[in-house]
């Protein structure tokens, strides 16, 4: 596979070159899919987000100023696309008081026995309610502050803190169960 620099990819895509469009997708589809898997509830939803995200990337390529890495710019578009998808779900940031992560979430006992690799942790994240998952992603992995999360999601800072606390509690339970088994 021919590799291109960021600048070459940008100018090629802007000129409508299908070679550059394909190269851009091949270069960034996997890392961006990993990001989106953390925000989505399953693989199918992550693929929908990825598709919409790449369409936006090609459409808005002219807005890339070259001030940072192309990958960072694409990642921001992907996260924004994920947020757009999540916002369509009514009250996606809400408390789930009776939520039980162990209830019909793990398909087999082998899930617990598996090592804590990225795929396993991803599956744990995807079992959280969308609000918990999104706030945990923003805070713990992306490194946003509660103020920034509140602004991004249109919620209060208190809600952001509460959602993070509950996400951690549920993940702790899952991990404890995993270690015990």
């Amino acid at each position, binding site marked *: 596979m021919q590799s291109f620099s960021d600048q070459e990819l940008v100018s090629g895509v802007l000129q409508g070159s299908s070679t550059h*469009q394909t190269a851009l997708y091949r270069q960034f*589809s996997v890392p961006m899919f*990993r990001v989106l898997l953390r925000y989505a509830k399953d693989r199918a939803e992550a693929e929908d987000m990825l598709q919409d995200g790449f*369409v936006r990337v090609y459409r808005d390529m002219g807005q890339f100023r070259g001030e940072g890495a192309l990958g960072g710019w694409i990642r921001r578009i992907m996260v924004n696309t994920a947020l757009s998808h999540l916002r369509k779900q009514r009250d996606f940031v809400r408390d789930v008081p009776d939520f039980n992560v162990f209830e019909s979430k793990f398909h087999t006992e082998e899930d617990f026995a598996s090592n804590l690799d990225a*795929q396993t942790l991803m599956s744990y994240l995807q079992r959280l309610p969308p609000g918990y998952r999104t706030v*945990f992603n923003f805070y*713990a992995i992306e490194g946003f502050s509660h103020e920034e999360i509140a602004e991004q999601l249109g919620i209060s800072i208190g809600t952001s803190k509460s959602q993070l606390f509950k996400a*951690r509690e549920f993940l702790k339970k899952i*991990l404890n169960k995993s270690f015990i088994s």
Partner: protein
Amino acid sequence: MTEQQAQSPIDDLFQKTFENLPDSPAESGWDTPSDRVWQNVQTNLSKPKKGWGTQSLVLMAALVVTVAAGLYWMFSQPIKTPVTQPVVTPVEQPVVAPSEPSENQPVASPKPSTSTGSGKDAQSKPVPRNSTEEQKAKSGDNTAQPLPGSKPTLPPNSTEAQKKKGEKN
């Protein structure tokens, strides 16, 4: 993102695991999207744009503004009629003819009113057509005024004429 955040061990576990992923996709394929995604992206890329693009809208707006400005300019100009040079002919001395009342001028009373009112007012006051005074003039109700220096003639049946008749008799 800049401020120091309180990280829990769980946060660290997830963060480090996802940051240290290898560049190459996993053999199991869990982090590789299906081919359907790229096919759909390509389909979207080859789709013609729906409706009006931003550029088209801007061009259309500019055209409308230009046409409107042109129309405004066109109608705000005074209408120019072809100017014909007047033929200059030697002008003879105009013969001063007795002025007749033109149609536009107010019709003056045939004679100054002798009744009430100052003479100046009566002379300058135009008599409108079909007015009572004009109708009087038409019906011959006005009596002839004596010329200056002549004896005033009395109407034959007036009281003064009968008195004079009686004196003569």
